């Protein structure tokens, strides 16, 4: 039997892209899934671990954003647009 129950999410933003926190939440859902039917003790431990992974993801996503801004700033500087670097809030 082909299952018709399709579960998905639609996320949108206006005037900005997704934040590291929003992307970390999405990545986390791909990394681990805690069943609602899991033993409560195991579920609790899994949720704590999930929270830890989320913090690690956020930290490195923010670092990636910052690192990319450094790269962009250098490209702007090399192109003679140093005045635009402050827009990147570095």
């Amino acid at each position, binding site marked *: 039997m082909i299952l018709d129950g399709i579960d998905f999410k639609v*996320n949108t933003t*206006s005037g900005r*892209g997704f934040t590291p926190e929003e992307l970390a939440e999405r990545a986390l859902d791909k990394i681990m899934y805690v069943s609602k039917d899991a033993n409560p003790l195991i579920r609790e431990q899994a949720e704590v671990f999930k929270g830890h992974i989320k913090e690690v993801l956020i930290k490195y996503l923010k670092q990636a954003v910052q690192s990319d801004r450094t790269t962009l700033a250098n490209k702007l500087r090399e192109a003679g647009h140093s005045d635009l670097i402050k827009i990147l809030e570095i």
Partner: protein
Amino acid sequence: MAITQAMCTSFKVELLSGGHNFNTTNVARSADTADVFKIAMYTSSATLGSTTTAYSVTNEVSGTGYTAGGNTLTISQVPTSSSTTAFLDFADTTWSSATITANGALIYNSTNSNTAVAVLAFGGDKTSTNGDFSIIFPSADASNAIIRIA
């Protein structure tokens, strides 16, 4: 006019006829190359559901950051199984810097005459304004994957 979530009936028939290939190895027909699957988005004026058989431009979304035909999907989980359920999944897809409003989407096989696979109903209009519009597919497992055969 309405968009009703469904696995298209024609897709089920075509699966049994070998009309869709989601895998890159051990493919029964021709070369070991998966078909190209795309996702197109539609406005609330569209009528989509289990009887949808193919992609159509009628009432397809238009706007900044969106190209007719939609995005090409990446198969993130090739067909596999867990216990008695076979499943596959797609990677999340995003329209960046987009100004669009959509009410639903159609996954279709662009390799096989744009034949329909599944209709996704958003449950209302979703809008991005100079922002990102993402469709986030569920976990690739037997309980959640976007396409499952149990």
